[in-house]
């Protein structure tokens, strides 16, 4: 077999197999960005109303829920700017649901790329999250316009928003990595996650505010606040909409306890990253 007079030892750069991140950060970013922008454009220009549809979906939900909870159910009672709170909650949760549900089958959907070119595998879920993030940013603009028009005043505490968005981004990315790598081997991840996401919608203070739990089931409040989404929603309401609303630290019963939801975010990110990293080399063969 040694028909070639090759000296052992000086073979040069070894070709490593597929990995989660790859060595080249610029290529990673170029790819993730290109895929995300392309996807976004396709949704944008695919229909007559384009972006409006992306906005209309949460707005419709908002309209229905607002009607139900202000007119028929007493959830909006005594809540200042319930409408803004509800819209903001829906927009934040929509991002969470879109990004995580979209990432579940992302590797399988991108099969033709995964099996045909060498690129860091993490690009795929990251691009899905990015696409959802673009949409989220546009929707947030709508929330801000709506908030200002209903009398919410800009305050310095709005500067907390990037921090909250960062935390949300890390959480979403962690879940996206976890789900997308699991889905390659277990196809029932999707229905399971659809149910979980549905449950999370009601378990998070989107349609209600956290004080409502406190009033009816005081002992549950801290439990509900362990959900990172609850922390983000509650704190966003406190910082952006109503300074008199309880902050996340107050609702959970002390800033120290915030370690639990933050811990959940960190753990889901680390776990997701670890699992994705472990699965990355074999994704192409398992599809």
């Amino acid at each position, binding site marked *: *077999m*040694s*028909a*070639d007079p*090759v*000296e052992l030892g*000086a*073979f*040069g*750069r*070894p*070709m*490593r*197999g*597929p990995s989660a991140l790859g060595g080249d950060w*610029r*290529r990673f970013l*170029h*790819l993730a*960005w*290109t895929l995300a922008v*392309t996807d976004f*454009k*396709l949704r944008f220009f*695919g229909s007559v109303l384009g972006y409006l549809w992306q906005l209309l979906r949460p707005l419709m939900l908002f309209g229905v829920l607002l009607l139900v909870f202000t007119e028929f159910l007493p959830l909006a009672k005594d809540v200042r700017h319930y409408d803004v709170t509800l819209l903001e909650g829906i927009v934040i949760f929509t991002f969470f649901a879109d990004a995580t549900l979209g990432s579940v089958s992302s590797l399988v959907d991108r099969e*033709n*790329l*995964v*099996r*045909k*070119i*060498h*690129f860091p595998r993490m690009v795929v879920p990251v691009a899905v999250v990015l696409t959802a993030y673009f949409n989220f940013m546009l929707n947030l603009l709508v929330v801000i316009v709506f908030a200002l028009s209903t009398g919410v005043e800009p305050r310095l505490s709005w500067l907390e928003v990037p921090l909250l968005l960062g935390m949300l981004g890390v959480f979403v990315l962690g879940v996206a990595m976890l789900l997308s790598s699991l889905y390659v*081997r*277990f*196809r*029932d*991840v999707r229905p*399971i996650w659809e149910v979980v996401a549905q449950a999370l919608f009601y378990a998070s203070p989107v349609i209600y505010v956290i004080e409502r739990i406190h009033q009816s089931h005081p002992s549950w409040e801290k439990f509900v606040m362990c959900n990172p989404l609850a922390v983000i929603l509650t704190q966003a309401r406190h910082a952006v909409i109503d300074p008199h609303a309880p902050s996340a630290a107050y609702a959970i019963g002390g800033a120290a306890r915030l370690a639990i939801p933050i811990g959940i975010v960190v753990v889901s990110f680390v776990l997701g990253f670890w699992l994705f990293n472990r699965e990355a*080399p*074999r994704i*192409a*063969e398992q599809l």
Partner: protein
Amino acid sequence: MSGSTDGVPAVVVDGVSKTFSIPREQVHTLKERALHPFRRSGHDRLEALRNVSFAVPHGEFFGIVGRNGSGKSTLLKCMAGIYGVDAGAIYVNGRVSTFIELGVGFNPDLAARDNVALNAIMLGLSPRDARERFERVIEFAELQEFVDLKLKNYSSGMHVRLAFSVMIQVDADILLIDEVLAVGDAAFQQKCFDVFHRMKEEKRTILFVTHDMGSVRRFCDRAVLLERGELQMIGKPVEIADNYMEINFGRETGGQADGEKRYGDRSAEIVDAWFEDERGERQTALPQGRACTFRSRVVFKERAEHPAFAVLFESEAGHPLFATSTDWVGNETGLYEPGDEAVFSVSFENDFAPARMFASPWVVRRGSKDLIDRRPRMVSIVVTGSHMSGGLVDLPHDVSLERAGETLTARASSV
């Protein structure tokens, strides 16, 4: 890449093995796992590559040849970094681009402009480079009028042209190409060939997976032949092509078929028939253009007077190609007693087209023309060669073209 590549080959494949485990029974759901937690789902191990080693120096056009399932595409994917290897290592010195399929990442709902950028970035260009080279891509593809047309409205020919134009804009030192030539019409293929020639002149290293022996012979400096995941041989394209033909057609048979039809009274029997190469060794495959010999051995069980020995060569489809007999040596072939043996031989230049060829020998009684023994398709041989003319035979011939005092001539011969 770096300039310090002197002496270091462009690609080194060092003892690479790759095994796929294929679930025997697709257990894909958690529910199934939960219901049968202890049932071990069986896995079939498919050894796609077994201890494959070779090196490709810079600037070489290297072919990777093998039948379907021989592991050639797996090898390419390992070199491209799409699959990890289970054992061994692959070393690559230079920028690599992989073309397993034309137009990876193309989206039918986007215009050509966006698709070019998308595809180029997938293949490793930066977004800026991709934008800068867009004009050149479109120019080469001759699609200037259709830049803003959505890809789904492109004809398949335009689609291929666009993809190929992007591909050649990628400035890699090492190109891994998987049968992209299989698509497109003759004009497109010619364009591909031209580009390959240019790349060859630019001293780029090209690894090319194919089972088209014509292009191997036309382009490759060297090639490797894979068979069932193992490296069968490495060497000159011509040798590889011959060997490929042999394993493609040979191997399974080469001997007598079961349940063969046989005619005659069997007062003598054709007990053996075979082909020999020019050195007199038995072969199941013979290269085109070389001398070879067909022989059949006949054992007599009854007395026979001046029998005639003959053979018919026919193509796989049953077309008679050529027949001959001992009539050429005369009618007096002698008297045979029971137990006597005779060997009938036909020597010829092998000018048959590359394919499988069958020999049907027979022995016949002089005068009465009664068959003593006839064994249709008793033995077959694979003629190897890489030139497919489309005919059943490739006679050596001269070709010339005269025009206004100019004359082009060539000798057509496979040796």
